[in-house]
């Protein structure tokens, strides 16, 4: 799955990391642009029109979250955050600001490539695929049908909505707030227990072993992600 010729802007103030990413991404066939600060990055997005941005949070001039917010005012370009900040609040802030994904340094290039592919696929295909299939799980959004190991299971409307937005964002982290807003409405953004109870029930219905989930992955303190690749 090599998207040859796709352009990636790497924004990081550490030269060593830019160098490493440059080499790794080049090897995968991407064209790489580099920026060492937030302002430079904003300009380059306008000038070079990249297909994806890999963005560090701790930039010397403008913070990465702020860069994300400004970009989101006019472009849906996929943004993957790469940061040493491992506090969940930082991750949530970046994701809520509109970042597509979040990776904590250090990371493996394999992981990064997978996340990039997910993000690119979502941005290049305008509509989400109506059918999601992985292992024994089969979700058909057009028919509102969920099958586990070929057997249709019944979900409550809330459980189905949860599964639906996970499928629509397959491979991507959804924060608790995003999920609550989309399923219950913005008035329920802080009612995390609703989410937990329904996720617990949903898992019990679709996961073969709910204590070791295969499909719906918990991102501790941040949100959930539907595993997209086996």
């Amino acid at each position, binding site marked *: 799955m090599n998207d040859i010729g796709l352009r990636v802007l790497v924004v990081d103030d550490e030269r060593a990391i830019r160098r490493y990413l440059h080499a790794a991404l080049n090897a995968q066939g991407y064209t790489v642009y580099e920026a060492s600060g937030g302002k430079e990055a904003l300009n380059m997005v306008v000038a070079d029109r990249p297909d994806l941005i890999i963005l560090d949070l701790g930039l010397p001039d403008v913070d990465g979250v702020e860069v994300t917010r400004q970009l989101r005012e006019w472009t849906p370009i996929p943004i993957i955050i790469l940061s040493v900040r491992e506090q969940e609040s930082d991750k949530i802030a970046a994701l809520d600001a509109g970042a597509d994904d979040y990776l904590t340094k250090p990371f493996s290039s394999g992981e990064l490539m997978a996340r990039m592919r997910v993000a690119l696929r979502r941005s290049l295909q305008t509509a989400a695929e109506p059918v999601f299939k992985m292992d024994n799980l089969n979700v058909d959004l057009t028919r509102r049908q969920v099958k586990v190991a070929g057997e249709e299971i019944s979900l409550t409307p809330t459980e189905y909505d949860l599964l639906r937005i996970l499928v629509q964002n397959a491979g991507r982290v959804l924060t608790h707030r995003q999920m609550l807003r989309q399923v219950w409405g913005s008035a329920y953004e802080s009612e995390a227990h609703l989410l937990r109870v329904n996720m617990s029930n949903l898992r019990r219905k679709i996961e073969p072993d709910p204590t070791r989930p295969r499909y719906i992955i918990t991102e*501790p303190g941040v949100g959930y992600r539907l595993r997209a690749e086996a």
Partner: protein
Amino acid sequence: MSTLPPDNRPDPDRLLAHVQADEKQRLRGHLKIFFGYAAVVGKTYAMLEAAHQRKAEGVDVVVGYVETHDRVETENMLKGLEVIPRQTITYRTIQLPELDIDKILARKPQLVLVDELAHTNTPGSRHGKRYQDVEELLSAGIDVYTTLNIQHLESLNDVVAQITGTKVRETIPDSVIDEVTDIELIDLPTEELLNRLKEGKVYVPEQAGRAIEKFFRQGNLTALRELTMRRAAERVDDQMLSYMETRAIPGPWAAGERLLVCISPGEVSERLIRTARRLADELKAEWYAIYVETPGQAGMSTDQRDRVHRMLRLAEDLGAKSISLPGQSVVETVTDYARSHNVTKIIIGKSRRSHWYELLRGSVSDQLIRQSGPIDVYFVNSEAQASFKQSERLWQPHRPWRRYIWSIALVAAATGICGLVAPYISPTNLVVIYLLSTVVAAIFLGRGPAILASFLSVATFDYFFVPPQLTLAVTDTEYILTFFGLLSVSLVISYLTAQVREQAEAAQRREAQTAALYELGHDLTATVGLEAVAKTIIAHISQTFSREVAIFLPESGQLRLYNASPGLVVAENELAVATWAFEHGQIAGRGTDTLPDASMHYQPLKTTHGVIGVLGVKPANPNSYMSPEQRRTLDTFVNQVALAIEGARLAEQARQTELLEATEKLQTALLNSISHDLRTPLVSITGALSSLEEASPALDEEVRRSLIETAGEEAERLNRLVGNLLDITRLEAGAMRLHCEACDVQELIGSSLEQIGTPLKNRQVKVEIPPKLPLVPLDFVLFSRVLVNVIDNALKYSPPDKPIDIKARVSNHSLEITVADRGEGIPAGDLEHIFDKFYRVQRPDNVSGTGLGLSISKGIVEAHGGTIRAENRRGGGAIITVRLPLEGIETNE
């Protein structure tokens, strides 16, 4: 020293004293006094001359304070010497120059010149007297040259006053001279001195006239000159004796004589003390000054108490051992003390009591002579001096006047009763009612009012009931006998009753003090820790002496206020006084000679290890001073306090040293562990990378892959370690804040297993969670880290083919999660340590770990208010239980 030396061999005690004195002398500066008999003999000139000579020898000489009296010759002598500028002290509106002791101490010369040793400093100076300044300079190891006139010597003060008719106020204790290394007698024939004066070389002219008239008379001067020479000779004699003693040279040992002088609250004591000192000097005798406090004196006025105290201090200044002893009778106490201390001569003042009084009570002198046995008794005449004000009359009432009103009322009441019963009884029997009133007055009102009642009774009885009534005249002479009987009986009764009462009071007071002391001791033994000890001390002392108390203790070399009575504010300058007391190991502040302007009295806390702190005492009423009795009690208190504080300090130090050692050990272990753990993965990574770089083509694919895998794993391990270190740092810095949310336990366990990832592959993990567990409020991220660490631990310490059992349940209102393995279990001795930082159970197959995981887990669980513990599992293996209390949570949603 209760027995006399049997022969002339050097007494070991004395030799030791000599050695100690020598030692002290070596560290101290040397004092040289230019000693003269009058102001004009040329002491200052001689001192400057000597200074120049020393300077020529290369000694670092400075002038601290020299009074030239505008004499040209003297001023010329000052040239070529470095003069330390004087400080100016403002007293009221006048600016007065004084010796600047701090500048000299800072300059630290070898030798400093300080004129007029007996000078009294301006109030507001550090010390009351200049000789105390000099003392401080000497203590600092600086040599001092100074000048002194004979009339300023304490013990000769009254003799000089007798000779010249002028009493000199500025005196110095004889002990200052006794410790002097060197005395140089500056002599000038009297005629020459008078000539100098006439030439106006000395004083400013108008002063000279008066001075010559009053002081500088040929006769006076000759007498003073003789006195001076004799005193200087005595000093030389002392030195000779001292020399002979140390070398066991047989000589005129006079040490056998011991004098004892008895002090009373009367004025005679001052003279008595000086006489005793002179006598002691002449006899080369040790001497004691003692004051006997009898129950009868319990009602003494504060003025009298102060005087006694002053007298004891004066005696001490003059070289006596002063003691204040409680006793029933003066005579017995004195003779007992004299006998037990081998006193050979007792000196007492001639009684000035009336003949009547002595007939009634017996004279102390007579009793003393009878009881003293082989001890000589000397009487010193109390010479009435106009300059002393008779401030205390014998029967002066010091009780509130209200008591006298009461006694009058009592007599009035008695008269009223008599008036009622007079028609029925004969007048002579009415006397009994009056007697009764006197007894009541004696019991409840004290001695004075009772005596008043006695006289009033006689008068009213005469006036109202003895015919002719309503006059003081008496027709029947029989009544004279009645009067006399009534008066004498009531006087005796009042005296005896009052005495009993006062004795009881004195006993009570003493008992109260003993009890207070006992209580302090008792409470101190029960107190642990310096802070608690200080609090106990403050509470006890302020209660016993009704004073505010502050404790000062040194902290890194500087004296600081450690604790004080609530509300007591200690100003910066007060701290300076306390510091002085601390550094010099002497009392200072209020009621002392050093910095008496301070608001508190400072007492150094001395132990065998030196001065360990200072106790400050501040009276509630600025005009009240402590009685000698209180001072004595305070001294005893201070000794106990010093011991208690030292004990507490030592205990604290020991504990801190222990703690420090433990911390140091831990830190070393920690650093070793961290550097090992951080470096090991780096070694593998750099090793793998360099092999790949250098030998890339030569390596076959499998080796390359294995190298890369190793590097990757090690990097992962390094990352985990750094994460752990960050966690533990956050935990310890208190920077880890909990974000508790209702969490699903199943999700928590699932997420934890997910986070562990690869190591769980091919490992059997059994998870048991009851279906209806409630949501539990906890910090999901942190708590999953707990489980990750605990599960990871189980994985590491058990063989790969054995399962890991994870169970969650709710019991006893708490959530319990257990992680059990089937490994070797934990050695019993390690059970309580496995949650310690960097603690790893020793295993032959070196398990890689940071030794931080469990300690982080413990920190997080405890932050949640839960507990974590480890035990060995039945059937082998270890089991770790995390328990989290669930308060107010329904077990079912």
